[in-house]
């Protein structure tokens, strides 16, 4: 937090002098714009932001942000960010990653970072394809996906990123869409305010290798028809005129038509703060995320709970030990058992 009144930052302050080199029409542009609009509103000095990325189209992100940035190696951004945050708790550390980077080569780092609850923000741009390597299927590609590496269609099942995060014990899990700018900005602000690992899946269109992957959700009718905008403490209603809702039967969600005596009161009240992530898991499992199924696509915050952060725990131990165990370097080097050889060659126990 700034201690003195600094001049207000603007979107322009976060634009770097580098030419943005994503393909024209890429969903990444919209996400970049949203982040550049949100950061100045967070009240954090620009030099305190660090964006760490891995490899892939999304991971070029740091170059376009006029903050500190680290474009690291494939899948390892959460590990780099963890080391940075543990030693520099004053920094606001954001990881930008993609579905291949985070869920394939870097899956191990993602789950362990979330498990530890390191106080960093992770934005996963999910376009369900490998773009930078020119069009292979990814761990989030739908079954049967035909790509250069799966000419007969993929035969392995995709991950649901939200469920990976929930299963790893993430304390903040949310989802938005590249082109839903106001929604995306609101979710980013929520993530920024969270203390602990904040995981945000952003559905992102790759107009070159996987165009219109989320069209059923993002087109004019899809936005209202197929999007379920979660709000804490509010009933689960959706549709054109909020005319449908989700009821929880005790084992499953079911879509109900509102009217004729069925009201929003019959729908489940969403609780993002529930200790048990089971319902959030079930919510995330409702749809494959593209708006093509029978259920709407949950968007917004699925889970936001308070829990101690890893970095704070590590630093607490260091600070406590400093006071309970004062020792000089000289004492450390000497250890507990020393002997002294004097000028006459006599030996005696101790250090004098």
């Amino acid at each position, binding site marked *: 937090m700034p201690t003195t009144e600094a001049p207000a930052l603007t979107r322009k302050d976060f634009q770097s002098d*580098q030419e943005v080199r994503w393909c024209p029409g890429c969903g990444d542009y919209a996400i970049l714009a949203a982040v550049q609009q949100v950061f100045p509103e967070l009240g954090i000095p620009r030099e305190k932001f660090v964006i760490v990325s891995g490899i892939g189209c999304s991971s070029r992100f740091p170059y376009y942000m006029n903050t500190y940035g680290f474009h690291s190696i494939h899948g390892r951004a959460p590990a*780099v960010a963890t080391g940075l945050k543990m030693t520099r708790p004053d920094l606001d550390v954001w990881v930008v990653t993609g579905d291949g980077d985070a869920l394939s080569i870097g899956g*191990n780092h993602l789950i362990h970072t979330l498990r530890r609850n390191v106080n960093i923000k992770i934005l996963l741009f999910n376009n369900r394809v490998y773009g930078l390597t020119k069009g292979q299927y990814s761990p989030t590609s739908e079954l049967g996906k035909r790509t250069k590496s799966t000419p007969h269609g993929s035969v392995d099942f995709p991950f649901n990123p939200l469920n990976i995060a929930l299963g790893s014990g993430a304390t903040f899990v949310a989802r938005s869409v590249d082109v839903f700018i106001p929604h995306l900005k609101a979710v980013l602000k929520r993530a920024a305010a969270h203390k602990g690992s904040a995981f945000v899946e952003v559905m992102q269109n790759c107009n070159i290798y996987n165009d219109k992957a989320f069209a059923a959700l993002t087109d004019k009718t899809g936005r209202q028809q197929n999007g379920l905008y979660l709000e804490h403490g509010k009933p689960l209603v959706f549709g054109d005129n909020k005319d449908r809702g989700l009821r929880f039967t005790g084992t499953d969600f079911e879509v109900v038509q509102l009217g004729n005596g069925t009201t929003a009161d019959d729908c489940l009240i969403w609780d993002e703060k529930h200790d048990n992530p089971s319902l959030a898991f079930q919510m995330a499992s409702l749809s494959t995320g593209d708006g093509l199924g029978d259920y709407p696509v949950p968007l917004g915050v699925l889970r936001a709970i308070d829990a101690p952060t890893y970095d704070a725990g*590590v630093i607490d131990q260091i600070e406590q030990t*400093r006071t309970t165990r004062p020792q000089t370097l000289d004492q450390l080097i000497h250890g507990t058992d020393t002997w002294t050889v004097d000028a006459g060659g006599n030996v005696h126990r101790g250090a004098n």
Partner: protein
Amino acid sequence: MTLPIAGQTAAGRAAEATVSDVVIRFAGDSGDGMQLTGTQFTNTSALIGNDLSTLPDFPAEIRAPAGTLPGVSAFQVRIADHDIHTPGDAPDVLVAMNPAALKANLRDLRDNGVIIVNTDEFTPRNLKRAGYESNPLEDDSLNAFRLYQVALTTMTRRALEESPLDVRSKDRCKNFLALGMIYWLFSRPLESTIDWLRVKFRRRPEIAEANVKVMKAGWNFCDITDAFQVRYDVEPAQLEPGIYRSIHGNSALAIGLVAASRRSGLPLFLGAYPITPASDVLHELATYKHFGVTTYQAEDEIAAVCAAIGASFGGSLGVSCSSGPGIALKAEGINLAVMVELPLIICDIQRGGPSTGLPTKTEQADLLQVMFGRNNESPVPVIAASSPANCFDTALEAVRMATAYMTPVILLSDGYIANGAEPWRIPQVEELPDLRIDFHQNAEGFMPYMRDERTLARPWAIPGTPGLEHRIGGLEKEDVTGNVNYEPENHDHMVRLRAEKVARIVNDIPDIEVDGPASGKLLVLGWGSTLGAITGAVNQARADGLTVSRAHLWHINPFPRNLVDVLDRFERVLVPEMNLGQLALLLRARYLKDIETYSKVEGKPFTRDEILHRIEDMAGGPN
């Protein structure tokens, strides 16, 4: 040396003889506490003022089936009244807690050496497990040795008849009976071990007292009975005046890193994943939080090094510590540090390989891996520790290079010196090198890849500094600006620049020193943990009338500037290495000089005599 069988006799007492040097090996099941027993004997001898050197040898299995050969754990210690360099080629005394321990270690024992066996364990079942067809205590197979048969387990139980411990716990004290006997045999006081027991088991005093009682029983048994005809003493060594402690290599490395952190003003961050024989560095640094040390047990080797790089980016001293298999996994991370030019220390505590190999055994076969085991042109400074205590200085020197030149540095150690111990003359803190560094602060004209004219280092500008916001990454950088750049000329320039930066380190590292004549027929050149065996062998060869010189490399990349001249001044150069000739390959490639390799890859260090015999072959037999 061979222990004399006669000595000065006082009335009614065992004869007493002073010896200058003795090698003792404690061997037993991996659950018998042999490492602990050996360590106690070592520490007590250190406090007497002996020079010493130790060689632990333990199995990869935590508890292999009891009584079997794979389960044998041994600890060898050599104590002397003079300067020694190795833990000794052949034990004078072998303590064998069971038949397997006897069988596994007998072939190393010196002729006429002393064997102390626990007869209680020489049952038909245990003999069969160890592969004995007949009981060696009853046939003639041990005639060449001085065999002492002691019912250690029975005596331990008898000594603890009134102890509240259960039988199993009582039996676990039997190593202290053996220790008490060895203390008597070599005239050592019991006090420091008693002190240690009472501190170690301060919450379970009944265990401390049981061990004290058993150890005293072992001592008294020797003192009262005529078990041994001769009792020995080893006088203090004439060490340089100063304050000393006994230290293991991994401990010296951990303390050295803390010292470097203090001397540089950089908080220490260790990212590590458990791996033998490097884990003790993690364990030890985890207890130094009060020095601002952050330790991070990562999910894997890759995360360990990447977190260290993240910490370095933020202005900490990033360190990752592992062994060969882990270094292989870290290769991409190390190369990232090469590209983004951040300080990073990678410690490789080498072990036998390839693949999982021999996790608990020693080797020096990662040299070419750390030099070249990364994609593309990836220059990284390499420095190798030569003894347990030298790990301390090596840590400081690695940090100096890393921070002065903004580069990852690889520090090589190995299982032998990591787990071995020797006396260390404790340095004065104020005499340690001043490693203070300044982070870049000035935003005026700042470019992330502008360079220091002398070192070619780029500025270390850490996040949180207003006006220095910049991006780094693994893509090729444009010189000065640090912008991503794919131009052919720029890439060629940057590849050469990174190589030149590491090469320039030669400007402030010491020349290699030659011990003995500066020129002549034979130079024995070593690196790393072969120092002790080479020094012992060369000294002996000279005592035998041979002319031979010796030099030892500390910096391996870059080599010291005068190395080429040193090599040219000798007709023959012998390089003993625990690999198939890796340093020799580098030297031949660099200097077009014929190098003769003496290889040993048995998972064990060279003995002095192995190298001595090779020197004799090359420099003519003893006069």
